[in-house]
């Protein structure tokens, strides 16, 4: 296959192609850049493309190959990074006007590791502003459209990262997941996305939204692709005090190991009323498939699931109100023009620079942390958070991996939920609890609605249980092949 043909395949196949000399890294990058040029105007996935930088990196890989040097595991693989990853020399905005024009002087650990492995950086991907949102309609610059239906959202907050992989505008991408922001867009875009165990991947150089909830993680077309990215990104980092000092697992091997002997838990609370019946049918069929593949399916209960949204919107807003205090117009980013005093400097800079959702969350977060309210709201939320985490611990004494829907609905239309913040928050109902508990969770495609929209299966493991999750995900993918279907809405654009 030539480079233009291979961009629709997995990053694993592309890495093989470069290594075996079937095509050059330069040809592969040029194919992606040409496709971005043709299609992304309609999708809005990229905030900026660094074509010159990407070509330079690709040429360096090709030079190493010609010189007979050892190539890294991801040599020549073109990736896109959510614009929340700090990239030295390349503008990083978090899709916010308050950071517009910021050119970082340092680089995130995750992207540094991928570069060291030979991956090519194509550019920065669109997102909901400061990772706050579930539809990518909160970007200060432009929305992102779902490659399966351009009138619909890709999900959020890592909407650009998910849409770009689904539309073959990069071979893989990075996102972040704080309440579902990798898994939900993966589900709505029909690709694989993983939120690792908290602390498994370093947060150094990942702009902070909610520090106890932010999880950097990968997107890919296949389970093996996500496993490959995880092996490179994961691991202890002295620059992140919360990073876990434990060996990185053999995730690709796990994804090939099969699932016989594993027990899959089905939490009753994740199959409640209000779910789209097509989603329920597809997910239940997936679970039957897992049973046929050799897993034992057991019912379990996570009784505090119904409190997860309340806990999440108390904890994440409190943490965000603290993390976003640094945007003050002094050291970087936007500064208001007409400032008479310090109060103006802060108030006008932040009033002008932040969009509606960050403002909403800063106000809510400041409110719940006020003396007098702290124990009733934030303190209460932290205790219920422990109950949610304990639910998972108890469930994992009865099973190895939990299986649930990722999202109760398929992709909704742009504008459909943006008028009512609470409605938008409820879209996260199945994804927030694993984020609060810090347990690893992956979403993969498990079918399509009659309207052709992707449906996602969520697999949740115990802390540092990524291997079990990959075993199940890999086995399910081999049995079903949903991931080979391509979004037709985008094919007609190219």
């Amino acid at each position: 296959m030539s480079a233009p043909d291979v961009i629709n395949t997995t990053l694993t196949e592309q890495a093989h192609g470069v290594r075996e000399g079937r095509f050059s890294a330069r040809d592969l990058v040029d194919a992606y850049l040409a496709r971005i040029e043709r299609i992304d105007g309609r999708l809005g996935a990229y905030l900026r493309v660094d074509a010159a930088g990407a070509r330079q990196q690709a040429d360096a890989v090709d030079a190493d190959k010609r010189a007979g040097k050892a190539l890294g595991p991801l040599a020549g693989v073109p990736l896109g990074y959510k614009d929340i990853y700090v990239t030295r020399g390349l503008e990083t905005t978090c899709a916010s006007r308050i950071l517009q024009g910021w050119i970082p002087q340092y680089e995130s650990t995750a992207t540094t590791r991928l570069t060291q492995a030979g991956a090519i950086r194509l550019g920065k991907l669109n997102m909901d502003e400061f990772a706050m949102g579930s539809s990518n309609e909160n970007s200060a610059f432009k929305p992102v459209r779902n490659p399966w239906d351009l009138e619909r959202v890709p999900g959020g907050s890592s909407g650009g990262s998910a849409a770009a992989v689904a539309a073959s505008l990069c071979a893989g991408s990075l996102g972040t997941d704080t309440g579902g922001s990798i898994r939900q867009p993966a589900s709505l875009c029909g690709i694989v996305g993983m939120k690792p165990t908290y602390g498994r991947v370093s947060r150094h150089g990942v702009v902070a939204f909610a520090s106890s909830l932010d999880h950097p993680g990968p997107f890919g077309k296949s389970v093996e692709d996500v496993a490959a990215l995880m092996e490179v990104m994961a691991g202890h980092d002295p620059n992140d005090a919360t990073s876990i000092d434990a060996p990185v697992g053999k995730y690709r091997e796990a994804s090939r190991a099969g699932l016989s002997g594993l027990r899959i838990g089905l939490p009753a609370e994740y199959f409640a009323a209000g779910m789209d019946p097509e989603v329920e049918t597809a997910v239940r069929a997936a679970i039957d498939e897992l049973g046929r593949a050799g897993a034992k399916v057991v019912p379990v209960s996570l009784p505090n699931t119904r409190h997860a949204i309340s806990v999440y919107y108390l904890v994440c807003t409190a943490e965000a109100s603290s993390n976003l205090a640094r945007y003050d117009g002094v050291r970087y980013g936007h500064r208001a023009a007409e400032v008479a005093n310090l109060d103006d400097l802060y108030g006008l800079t932040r009033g002008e620079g932040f969009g509606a959702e960050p403002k909403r969350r800063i106000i809510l977060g400041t409110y719940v942390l006020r003396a007098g309210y702290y124990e009733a709201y934030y303190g209460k939320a932290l205790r219920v958070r422990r109950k949610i985490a304990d639910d998972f611990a108890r469930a994992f004494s009865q099973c190895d991996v939990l299986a649930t829907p990722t999202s109760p609905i398929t992709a909704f239309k742009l504008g459909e939920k943006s008028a009512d913040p609470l409605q938008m928050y409820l879209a996260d109902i199945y994804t927030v609890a694993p984020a609060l508990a810090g347990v690893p969770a992956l979403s993969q495609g498990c079918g399509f609605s009659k309207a052709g929209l992707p449906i996602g299966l969520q697999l949740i493991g115990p802390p540092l249980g990524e291997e079990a999750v990959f075993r199940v995900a890999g086995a399910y993918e081999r049995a079903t092949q949903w991931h080979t279907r391509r979004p037709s809405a985008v094919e007609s654009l190219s």
Partner: protein
Amino acid sequence: MPRIDPNEVREIAQLSRLRLSEPEVARLTGELDAILGYIDELKQVDTEGVEPMTHAVPFDCPLRADEVGPMLTPDEALAGAPRREGTLFVVPRIVPGPGGDM
């Protein structure tokens, strides 16, 4: 009875240094009232004897030797400054005084 009123929103906006317009204050008051209404259900949860959880995985705050390592140069650190003078970030005068230099 509303859980939050426009005056409180204005107070919080001042605490968080956000200059909001009056239409923004009105809109946020309504939205936050609805969100706080939803969150109210947490009151019913029995958390007697339950420790607060701030951290997903237990960890001891790691320390390292107090040795100087690689870091940004002053020029790198100031590279994004909206206003700078030498190795200083320039901001509006904080203490009122003659001249009012900005």
